[in-house]
């Protein structure tokens, strides 16, 4: 199952990002293992309309789970319609920490 974590940097050792639409990077990894991959968010500094466009990135990458701190209304509508589950991570750890907590079942599901 493909998991996406919002991140301040391109690797799992970078800090997790609280915001969804304006997250600098989206990190992807299969929950069964494998390599991390990273997509820079080209909409991070856009004037508006970032939420749905960021959600489109997740859909295109086939993510089934999103780990982030906060998500706006429009992006939430898209992510929900795409059947992607959202888990909230609001600690100051790395994207890798957030992923580990999710795998250990320690993150709260957001609906």
């Amino acid at each position, binding site marked *: 199952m493909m998991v996406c974590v919002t991140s301040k940097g391109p690797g799992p050792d970078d800090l997790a990002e609280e915001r969804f639409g304006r997250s600098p990077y989206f990190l992807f990894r299969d929950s069964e293992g494998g390599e991390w991959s990273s997509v820079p968010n080209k909409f991070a500094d856009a004037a*508006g309309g970032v939420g*749905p466009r960021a959600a489109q990135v997740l859909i295109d990458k086939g993510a089934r789970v999103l780990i982030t701190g906060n998500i706006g209304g429009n992006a939430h509508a898209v992510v929900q319609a795409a059947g992607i589950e959202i888990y909230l991570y609001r600690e100051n750890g790395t994207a890798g920490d957030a992923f580990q907590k999710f795998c250990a079942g320690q993150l709260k599901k957001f609906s």
Partner: protein
Amino acid sequence: MRLVVASGKGGTGKTLVATNLAAVLSSEREVVLADCDVEEPNAHLFFPSEEKTLPVQTDVPLFDRSRCTQCGKCADFCQYGAIVVLKDRFMFFPEMCHGCGGCEVVCPEGAITMGKRSIGHVAFSTPRNGLVLITGVLNEREIMSPHVIRETLGYASGHPLVICDAPPGMACPVVETLEGADTCIFVTEPTPFGRHDLSLAAGVASVLGVPSGVVINRSQGDDGIILDLCRERNLPVLMTIPFDRDIAETANSGQLVTDRIPGMREQFRDLFDRACDLRRGE
């Protein structure tokens, strides 16, 4: 002649200046007051009167779902994030759409045609002899304020004297209001915020080639912070309004200072003459 009352910083007294100018001038000639602060128009509060309204519409894509193959070309093209394509369907967010029509052009299936959608209205009233108030109103949740401003100004265009109450800030809505104006009055206050935003807004007017001057509102005697900037930028100070309880109470109760406070009529009349002189580079 089109005169814009703008500010940069919000809450400095644009509407105070615009409404009083319009009221004073309407006693001697025909005036249109165009409220271009479409996200929060408030000039009408000083001129309660019966209104007639016309809708403001924008272009919006209409989708033929039976033709859509979820190819995603429209979503990829849309710079505003208004279309998202999922595997089995798409989602459209009308309030994020700017009505550019690009999705219709790129759709290979001919599944998109352009229709209309209402995003606000323009209200018309005649609150006094000689005064027509035209108010642009953008609906809540909508973002296309320049579109509503353009329509508002369109209804006012051609009139010999139009006074515009501009939106605050220095972004697209202000540019839309200022562009093509003959002269501009910036209303500011003697605070660091007032100075900072006046500096930016005056830069916008300068780029657009609109001659401008300054009204200092809520003056407590020492306006050095603004006067310094005005000297630096060669902006004439056209009027100074004192920080005064009578003025505040009059405005807060929805009345015009030029109707209530002696001497104000003459001062606003002078302000208009000075603003007109800017236009001729005097």
